[in-house]
């Protein structure tokens, strides 16, 4: 079956998609909470103030979370999913936990989806935790030139991790295609 094509989220997605607490997978300042944050930038290096970033991640032990409650957070249930719109400076942030590896010996990552006005279809990427000793075992990172692979790796900071997303141009983030899409887009 041919999948439905995507379309841009447009300029008015704030009406329907962001919600209170969407970017707080755990309460800021709670035990183990980190800030994952960064900027979304366009091909001219300018911030994208109307982008939306979603993350989907394993828990600290590498477990895939199957708990509802992302839309109405209770402050106790870690659902592994969050959504953040960028601010006028193109900045987004999440309060979350560091994911563990879902497979032993593989580097942990956040699965990331990016939407924006002007972006006609959503983009997939990954934000890996720093830890280059495991990168050689990762099929994606090890297949990329080092400067491209570097776009997928977060930078450690005192309060957490930084991950900038460059939609185009110098340092353009590596975006992903999964087999299910390649098969139907061929």
């Amino acid at each position, binding site marked *: 079956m041919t999948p439905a094509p995507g379309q841009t989220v447009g300029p008015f997605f704030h009406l329907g998609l962001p919600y209170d607490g969407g970017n707080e997978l755990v309460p800021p300042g709670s035990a183990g909470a980190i800030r994952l944050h960064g900027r979304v930038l366009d091909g001219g290096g300018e911030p994208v103030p109307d982008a939306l970033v979603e993350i989907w991640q394993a828990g600290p032990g590498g477990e895939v979370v199957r708990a509802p409650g992302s839309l109405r957070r209770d402050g106790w249930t870690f659902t*592994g999913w969050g959504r953040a719109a960028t601010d006028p400076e193109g900045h987004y942030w999440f309060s979350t936990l560091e994911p563990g590896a879902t497979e032993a010996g593989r580097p942990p990552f956040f699965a990331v989806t990016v939407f924006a006005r002007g972006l006609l279809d959503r983009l997939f990427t990954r934000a890996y935790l720093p830890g280059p000793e495991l990168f050689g075992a990762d099929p994606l990172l090890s297949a990329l030139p080092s400067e491209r692979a570097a776009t997928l790796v977060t930078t450690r900071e005192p309060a957490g991790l930084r991950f900038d997303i460059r939609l185009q141009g110098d340092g353009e983030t590596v975006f992903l295609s*999964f087999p299910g899409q390649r098969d139907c887009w061929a």
Partner: protein
Amino acid sequence: MTTQADINAEIGARAGERGPQPRIDYPPYRSSVLRHPAHEPSPVDPEGVELWAPCFGHRDVEAAESDLTIQHAGEPIGERIVVTGRVLDGQGRPVAHQLVEAWQANAAGRYRHLRDQHPAPLDPNFTGVGRCLTDANGAYRFQTIKPGPYPWRNHVNAWRPAHIHFSLFGTDFTQRLVTQMYFPGDPLFDLDPIYQSITDPKARELLVATYDHEVTRPEHSTGYRWDIVLTGTHRTPVEAS
């Protein structure tokens, strides 16, 4: 100043391209020029969390959120409609108990959003946001009003065909989809660079709902049916169950 005739020519020049997904490098939609990656996407096999989708439940969504006409004290103005259909994966299996989000302009073509400065009236009885969960058969249903077309500033006299924005999840992370549902026979289809960024006409039609008299409610609202097929899953059905 870019005219509609200029945009039509640009759309026409790309019309022969194939492939069911939108071209993300599509200059007729001016805002896309600096906002699409120039590199090809990197092929990767999904692993770990990418083989699963986030989980939503009745704790997340109240049943009443699927009715966009009851969110205020009065009735919104406009043509009441029902939009319903099924969410399916690429193998045709229903996507059960999953989140569907929708947002839209009001009947006059105005969004309740600070950045919408189109001088058409806001409707105090219409916000334009709905959510629901699919049922065991993958079916979703919204009661709403038909949105109006609206002008935008892509070029002189640019108008978007009437549409409802949809946000969808599958059973895998990789199936995430945000798209727009259109109404049959819209005269603005040929003129709209966002719709035409899907250069395959058969693929574009997948975003157009059909009028369905079986969905129409007597003396209340007309009915539209729109089924949404996501990309294929990467897990086997046994694992997915």
